[in-house]
């Protein structure tokens, strides 16, 4: 009964989504206020029914109702309750439902916080979001119904993929999807602006916080995924340039470009059509991500579903959405002309360069992800493009960007004199060069070209990002302190610096060693002594494991003990490596247990990962910067007060 209620609720949600999509858009076109007023109640109603559907599926999981096919395929009685809940989005059907739920939540949030916007505009935004929701609800109901029954019900379920039984991955999809789906808001704002033909600076101001929120969720989501891959896939890599990872990374890159382009549109009224195009691109790449992950057309370590019919539906949906949006763009964008100009040395120029480089990076990642597919279709051969290619292709546009960040942050809008700028940047440049040489040269004893340049870039971004904050702290009494938006920018860029240092050091100075060890043996790797003290069997709730006990010493001094496990999950009989990781701020020691090699020997992978924590901490700091920026009071000005404040908030304001 519960699953049928869920199914029915989804159908009602679809009906409401159709109302929410059609009536406000038509109403806005006709200027009919009654029709426009449908938008918010329909969105709230849709959310209510989607919550019911989602609740029903969660309930079926908690009750272990194996007469539901989806539950039978992805759960088990012995599965801990936490993972029963996370199993809801552990596979295709449920993750779609999660997508729809998040879209409904975003829509209601937009409805709630857009009361101050012109009525026709917010009606159009909510209408467009309704249409997106119609697409996803149809997709779910027609091709991927999570409530399909299985008769007769099996006595027990097939269990959740053991890789997904992990707190990191329980959180990863909801956070990532919140980001993905969040770009639909920027998309809807763009479409609404194009329909109305009215795109001014207040449009950019309304769009900015929403985009920043979506971006910060996506940032955290990707970081969680990378962290999970690091400790759960068992082999210590933090990014594989796998198609599924790229699928989430491309919207991130486009979204980052969008955030920066929106800044220009808001402050100076420039780059309008470019901003629109980026908003469309970011959302399209989110949809493409879904397509890539869910259609199973690309070989990947993470994708869990393959179904050509679904792929076809998403492709059609993608075609309609992107094609329609670009068509509208081609028709409307030329009328959005901007008059203002800017000097070559100005913040606008640096943000333009930022956009060019980010889009080049996005394009390269896209090419690398799709090339194997295209070449196979063209019958050129089956190829794979490995991490080395992505490493090079991504570094080329990103390295100059890192140096530009530091200059761009200190450059004024419209026009900047060179002398004061170079005087200002002299100190951080000196700090960056010294620190960038000392860190690899003195602490790691090797000065490669790439590692030195990478470290200098990292310290350069860090020191230039700190400067405005210091300046604000030391400002003369009575002058205004740094705005939240500017502080957010500094914090986010500080995160970029941490991330850069982490990536550079971990890529250059990681040590990895596969060894054969017997109990009682001590081996040396990366300056640490690893002693295998013992092996024993342990039982988990739904797995059995062999656990090693490894003592780590440095120069005879005890550093810590690790207990890596080789688990076998009872239902699916899948072996899984659960690595032991000894964390410290400047390095991880990572031990994974492999197979038995005979004669009491075991294969063991020992790894030393310097600065790897900087990667994820850097991402979190970036997201924190987004949070600070999005909470700037400026974004909460109402339509009425805006008219009053219009003068000081205009293009003249330095940021």
């Amino acid at each position, binding site marked *: 009964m519960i699953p049928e209620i869920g199914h029915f609720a989804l159908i009602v949600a679809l009906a409401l989504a159709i109302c929410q999509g059609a009536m406000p858009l038509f109403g806005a076109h006709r200027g009919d206020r009654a029709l426009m007023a449908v938008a918010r109640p329909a969105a709230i109603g849709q959310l209510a029914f989607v919550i019911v559907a989602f609740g029903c599926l969660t309930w079926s999981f908690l009750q272990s109702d194996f007469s539901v096919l989806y539950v039978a395929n992805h759960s088990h009685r012995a599965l801990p309750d936490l993972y029963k809940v996370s199993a809801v989005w552990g596979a295709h059907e449920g993750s779609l439902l999660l997508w729809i739920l998040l879209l409904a939540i975003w829509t209601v949030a937009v409805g709630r916080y857009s009361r101050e916007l012109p009525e026709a505009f917010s009606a159009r935004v909510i209408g467009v979001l309704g249409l997106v929701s119609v697409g996803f609800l149809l997709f779910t109901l027609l091709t991927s119904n999570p409530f399909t029954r299985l008769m007769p019900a099996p006595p027990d379920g097939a269990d959740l993929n053991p890789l997904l039984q992990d707190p990191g991955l329980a959180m990863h999809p909801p956070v990532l999807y919140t980001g993905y789906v969040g770009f639909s808001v920027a998309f809807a704002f763009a479409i609404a602006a194009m329909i109305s033909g009215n795109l001014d600076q207040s449009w950019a101001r309304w769009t900015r916080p929403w985009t920043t929120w979506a971006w910060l969720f996506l940032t955290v989501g990707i970081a969680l995924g990378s962290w999970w891959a690091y400790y759960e896939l*068992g082999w210590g890599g933090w990014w594989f340039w796998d198609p599924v990872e790229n699928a989430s990374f491309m919207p991130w890159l486009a979204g980052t470009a969008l955030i920066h382009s929106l800044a220009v549109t808001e402050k100076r009224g420039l780059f309008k059509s470019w901003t629109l195009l980026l908003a469309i691109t970011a959302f399209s790449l989110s949809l493409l991500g879904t397509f890539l992950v869910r259609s199973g057309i690309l070989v990947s370590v993470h994708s869990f579903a393959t179904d050509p019919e679904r792929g076809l539906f998403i492709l059609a949906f993608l075609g309609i959405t992107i094609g329609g949006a670009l068509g509208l763009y081609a028709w409307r964008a030329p009328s959005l002309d901007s008059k203002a100009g*800017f000097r070559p040395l100005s913040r606008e120029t640096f943000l333009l360069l930022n956009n060019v480089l980010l889009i080049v990076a996005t394009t390269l990642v896209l090419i690398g992800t799709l090339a194997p597919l295209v070449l196979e279709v063209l019958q050129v*051969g089956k190829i794979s493009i490995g991490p080395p*290619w992505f490493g090079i292709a991504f570094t080329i546009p990103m390295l100059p960007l890192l140096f530009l960040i530091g200059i761009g942050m200190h450059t004024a809008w419209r026009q900047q004199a060179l002398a004061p700028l170079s005087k200002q940047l002299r100190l951080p440049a000196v700090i960056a060069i010294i620190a960038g040489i000392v860190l690899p040269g003195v602490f790691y004893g090797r000065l490669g070209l790439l590692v030195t340049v990478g470290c200098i870039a990292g310290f350069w971004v860090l020191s230039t990002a700190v400067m405005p904050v210091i300046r604000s702290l030391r400002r003369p009494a009575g002058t205004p302190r740094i705005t939240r938006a500017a502080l957010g920018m500094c914090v986010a860029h500080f995160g970029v610096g941490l991330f850069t240092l982490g990536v550079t050091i971990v890529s250059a100075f990681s040590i990895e060693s596969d*060894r054969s060890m017997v109990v009682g043996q001590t081996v040396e790797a990366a300056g640490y002594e690893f002693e295998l003290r013992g092996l024993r069997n342990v039982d988990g709730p739904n797995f059995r494991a062999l656990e090693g006990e490894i003592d780590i010493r440095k120069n005879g001094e005890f550093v810590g003990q690790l207990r890596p496990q080789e688990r076998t999950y009872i239902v699916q009989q899948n072996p899984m*490596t659960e690595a032991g990781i000894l964390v410290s701020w400047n390095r991880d020691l990572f031990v994974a247990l492999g197979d038995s*090699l005979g004669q009491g020997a075991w294969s063991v992978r020992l790894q030393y990962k310097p600065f790897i924590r900087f990667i994820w901490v850097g991402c979190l700091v970036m997201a924190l910067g987004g949070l600070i920026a999005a909470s700037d009071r400026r974004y909460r000005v109402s339509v009425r007060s805006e008219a009053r404040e219009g003068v000081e908030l205009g293009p003249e304001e330095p940021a």
Partner: protein
Amino acid sequence: MTPRKQRMLAVGLAGAGVVIATVLTLRAFEENMMFFVDISEVVQGNAPADRNFRVGGLVVQNSVEREPGQLEVKFTLTDTKNNLDVYYAGILPDLFREGQGIIAHGRLDANGVFVADTVLAKHDENYMPPEVADSLAKHAAEKAAATAVNQE
């Protein structure tokens, strides 16, 4: 800067970026893409000699050999028609088993042994890498055709 100049600058920069990106992409592709080669092709000597490539197939039953206590391992891969010996010094993935479809990256040595630097097995016991599935299906079809001819 006038809007016109501005646009020219934007277009120029974007154009330069695209050109640089294309050139670098094509060059890097040359060096970094790895072809998947059928085991039968490898056995017939049609594999690239001095560069890495990918092979995939089923691990032949009872073919996994190692000196007890050593990491180095040798096993045989098959596409059901031809066999290829693979040598690997490292930890095999969790789901590496005899009878399982796997993919290996590496190159051929002088003795025709494939020296792998990476061995991949998907985290799902029923999973068959698409390349391997294609390769197996092709040889199954050839076999069926051959049988049909013999019977005539």
